[in-house]
């Protein structure tokens, strides 16, 4: 039995997981996850603290970890062993969470990606949002703060909407002002939030159509926990005659990137072991 750690450094938070494997590299189990928002604190410090905390909670020492893998903006983590491209990591994490998934929608703080994958988590094609933050997770958080709603309550609240008010999907900053206007027009918080979810979802459903998604679609990233948002995507993709998809959301989907990195880390670890065993030791560090 051995352990790996996956660290997904996002734009506004770091996700850390500890995975456990049997000695032959099979039987992967997620044994601990930890989510931390940066909240204007020093990135490196927050990442280090998170790593130390998960080890302490599982009573593990640094030497007990076979491989520390990062993804996202993880190149800045200096104690990592290897770094994996975020799409590869998210795809692998999605297959771990739900083997039937064939598309992944990763909704992050700034960017959203949609990818088509096969059963071995190979990325077949993908689409990303461009150089603009309209409809991003960060934007939703700004709005929530403005409305005085805790981000964890946004999903629940938005489901109570009876007449969602759409926002201009143009610019995150201008849309913020749109929302201010809505508040002054006395539109309910529920309707504002669901309107925002719908405008965000519309962008993603477009991307889903572009990659020709079919079957099970998993939502990962920071917005995976938001039931209002997930239901908005389902609603809009149901309305789209050209799309035949079923949107699923799994417990722990927010950790998909970190999980994927930890699993790829385990894979690398085994490859390195095999290499080391088949060759005389040369003292080189892999």
């Amino acid at each position, binding site marked *: 039995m051995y352990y790996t750690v996956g660290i997904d450094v996002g*734009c506004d938070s770091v996700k850390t997981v500890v995975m456990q494997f049997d000695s032959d590299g099979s039987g992967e189990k997620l044994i601990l996850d930890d989510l931390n*928002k*940066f*909240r*204007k*604190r020093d*990135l*490196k410090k927050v990442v280090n603290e998170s790593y130390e905390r998960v080890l302490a909670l599982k009573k593990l020492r640094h030497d007990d970890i076979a491989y520390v893998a990062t993804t996202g*903006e993880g190149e*800045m983590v200096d104690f990592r062993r290897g770094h994996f491209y975020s799409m590869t990591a998210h795809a692998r994490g999605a297959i771990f969470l739900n083997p039937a998934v064939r598309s992944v929608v990763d909704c992050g*703080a*700034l960017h959203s990606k949609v990818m088509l994958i096969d059963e071995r988590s190979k990325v077949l094609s993908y689409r990303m949002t461009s*150089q*603009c*933050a309209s409809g*991003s997770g*960060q*934007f939703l958080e700004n709005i929530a*703060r*403005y409305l*005085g709603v*805790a981000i964890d309550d946004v999903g629940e609240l938005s489901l109570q909407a009876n007449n969602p008010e759409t926002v*201009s999907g*143009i*610019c*995150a*900053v*201008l849309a913020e*002002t*749109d*929302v*201010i*206007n809505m*508040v*002054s*027009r006395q539109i309910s918080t529920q309707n504002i939030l669901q309107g925002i979810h719908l405008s965000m979802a519309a962008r993603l459903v477009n991307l889903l159509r572009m990659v020709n998604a079919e079957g099970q679609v998993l939502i990962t990233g920071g917005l995976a926990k938001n039931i209002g948002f997930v239901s908005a995507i389902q609603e809009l993709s149901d309305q789209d005659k050209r799309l035949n998809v079923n949107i699923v959301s799994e417990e722990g989907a927010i950790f998909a990137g970190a999980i994927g990195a930890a699993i790829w880390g385990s894979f690398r670890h085994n490859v390195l072991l095999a290499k080391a065993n088949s060759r005389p030791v040369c003292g080189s560090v892999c």
Partner: protein
Amino acid sequence: MDCCYIGIDLGSTTTKAVFLDENENILGRGITNSRSNYELACQVAREEAEINARFELLKRKLGGDPRVASQLDSVMDNLACQYALAQHLKQLEALRNEVTSIVKNWIHHKEDTDEYLEAQETIFDFLVLQAYQDFLPGAEVQSDFFRDLATSLYLKQADLVTKERQLSFERLVGVFDAAIIRVENKSFALFYREYLDFARDRVVEMEMFKDLKGNICDAVLDITKKEFNILNTVGTGYGRLTLPFAKEQIRSEILCHGLGAHFMFPDTKTVLDIGGQDTKAIQVDGSGIVTSFQMNDRCAAGCGRYLGYIADEMNMGVHQLGPLAMTSKKAVKINSTCTVFAGAELRERLAYGEKQEDILAGLHRAIILRAMSLLARSGGVSSEFTFTGGVARNEAAIAALKKLIDENYGEIKINISSDSIFTGAVGAALFAKRDPKGVMADLEISKLKATNRAARPVAEQIA
């Protein structure tokens, strides 16, 4: 009875109000953040401007008193600081009460209520102590607004306290976010008499003003009782369609900025206004009337909010960005256009060890580059050129602008008034005085050479 005209500029980020006396002198200026309640923002800005006018009258009064004249500036600075302190303490007290009531009404985690209440108390005790140190003449203030000041200090303290006591930082911040909104939606300027008394009492206790006690007390009492006779009020700005005014009391912000700039600098030909979420390039004629203009659309990149985001990101006040950027030797080229992305780019660059000031210098240059393209489309830059709006208070933006204008248009006289942020409100106050019947309100700017009418929010379409 002093007669006054009021102009109110309801911007997306801040709301400004100006009191103009009968000789068209600016008597009082007020500014507040617009929050999500325009009516309240107007009221607060107006109240702030009225207080400011009272202070102006107080200064005139004390300046005419030979015993005080030699120490006039010092007396006024101390009074103003103590006044601001009194108001800040009042708001802190309200915030403490809100936070307490939110925690007491928790539905989940009721068992932790006491621990969190204690933590809050510790944080607020610190905030109050800190306020007494921060509100001194000459002290550097992070922001003019209670929300910003309270938020940045609270977050720092909450981080420390939660680490010490093993509590959840997220929960403390969540409570704060809910409480600050409630406090923001109350007006505190109504207590001005109370604040003035507080300020007076603290100032006359000071060793250096002991001998002036009688003079100061009399003057303060006198202006506290003063009443203003408001002859007309005109509103403008982003939120003007929601202003509680009659149609003839509303003017387009383009007109107001043109006239305001012309009032400050009569030879103005070109005006650049960089506000919270729009940038306007305006050409005016010899009497301050707009002949053509261009605005940004679809995107708020390169406006004041861009800097606001960056300041938030760095946990600094917007005021502090300019001075820091000025210390840069080598501006970094910023790749992001989008405001939100630029914030992320900043974070990444900092994490990779780039210097704060170099990144900031690059950000300021990026803002001005966007403004330059608007200026070019509106008809270029002719002398004299007047730079207005909130960003015109930022020295790094000014430096970048001067450099780019010099490179592209050669020798141009550039005007920047210390009142630049109030330009729109000044224009509105002038319309209140010169055009009480609202003839200009019907002026159709759309007939001018404006071409960018696409994709602006409805409230922004020029009537």
